[in-house]
């Protein structure tokens, strides 16, 4: 008869074995294992996490991707997406040193330079006006240089460019778009800068420009910053106020709890946007007011969920057990109840940020939130609304941006909830 001692040990070692293995497996491996287990929800969280990180990255370094400053006026207004700005540029032979109109200045008395334009276009006026300006400047400088180009008119672009090609004229002024279309036919010619002094965008404006000539795409990227600042700040404030109140009310109960719950429930039932409208309409448009207004809106949400969780956990037997071994109330609150509450709070936080961004956009859209000078998506939408008939891109892109960022945070909250909520699990 073999002893019980000996036969107990193999089992014990086996048990320890697999538990240790599971712990030794690294975080990455566990994440991948989780993927198999949680399936689609894992993807929900993973994709949204990537999106959130992307947005955060953009918010930190908008300059990396945005070609322009958000306030910079970079082109003509109402440019359709993808179109190059229609600016008049100088076209010269490739070897010429002429870059701007100023380079065509000649000393007094010498031959006036010839500049060609297409008959019937606006370039002639542009050349004349601009040369006039520069000429006055030159007179003031007193170097003896003058800029009074002779304007030669041609019937069409081909004739004009041929003339430049064979040297009949020194330079031509053509619409940048037109030139780009026929560029390939004239390998010896190149374009210089816009004669108006603006920089012609190298890549066109992929999302067009708005009504005062700002680049929509750049504003989009820069807008991420405001959106995330408002979203996170207000959520953090709500969290810092709602979480402790919920814990205390749930744990200690009594009149304090009942009164506070009544207030919170009333607040929760009230339409958030309208409350925010009320607050910002009185306080005035500023980013701080918006953050405060939105923060107030979400305190009841944290309060309710945390209080609910606290109440549930409070009834668990291990709390009673902890009390029976003499744990103090603060210890119980901190060590037992608080950690149980955290997963729900994380989920709410995620959804909260999403909601905050939506509310902030709504407020800005109504003209009540952020000061209209800020580069914010809601503001862009408000401004663009007037031009919905003619410039659809002014509202489409900012709206998509809002949707994507809200989607990212919402998906994360949704996915996390599927994973953490014990009532939704099937085992």
């Amino acid at each position, binding site marked *: 008869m073999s002893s019980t001692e000996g036969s107990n040990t193999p089992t014990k070692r086996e048990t320890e074995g697999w538990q240790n293995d599971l712990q030794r497996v690294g975080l990455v491996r566990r994440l991948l294992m989780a993927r198999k287990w949680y*399936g*689609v929800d894992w993807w929900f969280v993973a994709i949204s996490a990537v999106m959130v990180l992307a947005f955060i990255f953009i918010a930190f370094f908008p300059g990396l991707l945005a070609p322009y400053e958000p306030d910079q006026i970079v082109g003509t207004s109402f440019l359709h997406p993808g179109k190059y700005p229609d600016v008049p540029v100088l076209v010269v032979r490739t070897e010429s040193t002429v870059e701007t109109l100023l380079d065509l200045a000649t000393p007094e008395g010498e031959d006036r330079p010839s500049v060609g334009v297409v008959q019937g276009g606006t370039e002639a006026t542009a050349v004349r006006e601009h040369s006039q300006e520069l000429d006055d400047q030159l007179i003031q400088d007193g170097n003896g240089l003058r800029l009074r180009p002779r304007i030669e008119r041609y019937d069409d672009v081909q004739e004009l460019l041929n003339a430049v090609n064979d040297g009949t004229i020194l330079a031509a002024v053509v619409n940048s778009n037109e030139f780009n279309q026929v560029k390939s036919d004239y390998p010896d010619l190149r374009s210089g800068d816009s004669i108006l002094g603006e920089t012609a965008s190298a890549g066109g404006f992929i999302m067009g420009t708005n009504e005062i000539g700002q680049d929509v795409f750049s504003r989009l990227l820069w807008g991420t910053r405001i959106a995330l600042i408002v979203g996170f700040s207000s959520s953090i404030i709500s969290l810092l106020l709602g979480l402790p109140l919920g814990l205390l009310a749930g744990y200690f109960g009594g009149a304090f709890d009942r009164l506070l719950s*009544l*207030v919170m*429930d*009333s*607040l*929760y*039932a*009230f*339409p*958030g*946007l*309208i*409350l925010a*409208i*009320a*607050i910002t*309409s*009185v*306080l*005035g448009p500023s980013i701080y007011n918006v953050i405060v207004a939105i923060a107030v809106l979400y305190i009841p949400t944290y309060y309710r969920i945390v209080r609910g969780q606290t109440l549930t956990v409070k009834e668990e037997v291990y709390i009673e057990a902890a009390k029976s071994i003499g744990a103090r109330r603060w210890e119980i609150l901190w060590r037992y109840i608080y950690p149980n509450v955290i997963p729900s709070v994380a989920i709410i936080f995620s959804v909260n940020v*999403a909601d905050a961004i*939506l509310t902030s*956009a*709504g407020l800005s*859209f*109504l*003209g*009540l939130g952020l000061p209209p000078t800020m580069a914010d998506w809601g503001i862009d*939408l408000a401004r663009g*609304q007037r031009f*919905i*008939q003619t410039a*659809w891109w002014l*509202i*489409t892109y*900012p*709206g998509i941006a*809002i*949707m*994507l960022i*809200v*989607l990212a945070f*919402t*998906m994360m909250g*949704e996915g996390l909830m599927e994973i953490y909520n014990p*009532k*939704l699990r*099937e085992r």
Partner: protein
Amino acid sequence: MTPIAFILLIIGVPLVLMLLYVFIRGSMGLRRYILTRIGLTLPMIFILASLVFFIMRILPGDPVRSALGPRGTAEQAENMRRTLGLDQPLIVQYGNFLIDIITLDFGTSMVGGHRPIIDEMSERFPATLELIIPSSILALAIGIIGGSLAASKRRKFPDYSLRVYSVIIYSLPIFWFGLMLQLLFGIQWKLLPVAGRIDPVIRTSLQPVTNLYLIDSLISGNWPAFWSGVQHLILPTITLGLVLSGVFVRMTRINVIETLQADYIAAARARGIRERVVVYGHALKNAMIPVITLIGLQVAILLAGAVLTETIFNWPGMGGYLVQRISSRDYTAVQSVIAMFALLVALISLAVDLVYSLLDPRVRY
């Protein structure tokens, strides 16, 4: 009789009758519940009213100055302050404010017209109602059907696609969604109107009884008016209803999933009850009970969404009125509208809770 009184009668009388019936026939537990719940409404209104007061009177910012603009003289400011009662001590102001709310005396608008605000609100209330009701019905229909479908076919395609749908549509800013719909259907394809409630020419032929255009036109058999009203209603309803449906799909889904894990569901299956009956008959009926309470809370989102929707579609409802009055700096009106919203929310919340008590037999007996 004013339209608002008419509507309140239509909704209120059956509600009160039903309440009385239940009260008399119901058990002790139910009566206690009803009384308690009605009793709680008063503090709720009180709290919300106080909140509004606090925001409008105590927070920094001078409404009188803003209303008068830079050209207002000190004397005008003084006068206005006196008429509005802003020169009284705060406590007196607070008391007056509460009394005003209870008696529904909201004063006159500060800017442009000086009409009694209650009149302006009662004109616009039916418009908001006419927008909200179809939208909620749409949202509920999609939500309940979608949610239970997703829950019953969990981890399969309907579940995932409905979850993706609900998450995407929840993320759409409602005003942007409305604008996009306007762009497509109103401007690009020119199918539907994008502003107002009804063609203004046709409007002249309509006899306003309840100020709910659809009902009024049906009553008087005015088919062009009815059709015009419906056309104008389509885009705003889709905007508000669809965006709201996302929330309802999620809520219903979660509740049905939880319910499906209950023992009595397994027991029903063990008796050979068909899966469809199990889900829609047993699980849904039980899941609906908490969902109804949640729906009551969603009234908040509904009203908030209505404000934005009305603004975009130029819908002459309370929400649009609020925004308009804010830009005109008419703080009396703003205050009144918000107070009215608070009242509405409290009453709807009460109604929902009472309906809940009727549905759940555990409360009844």
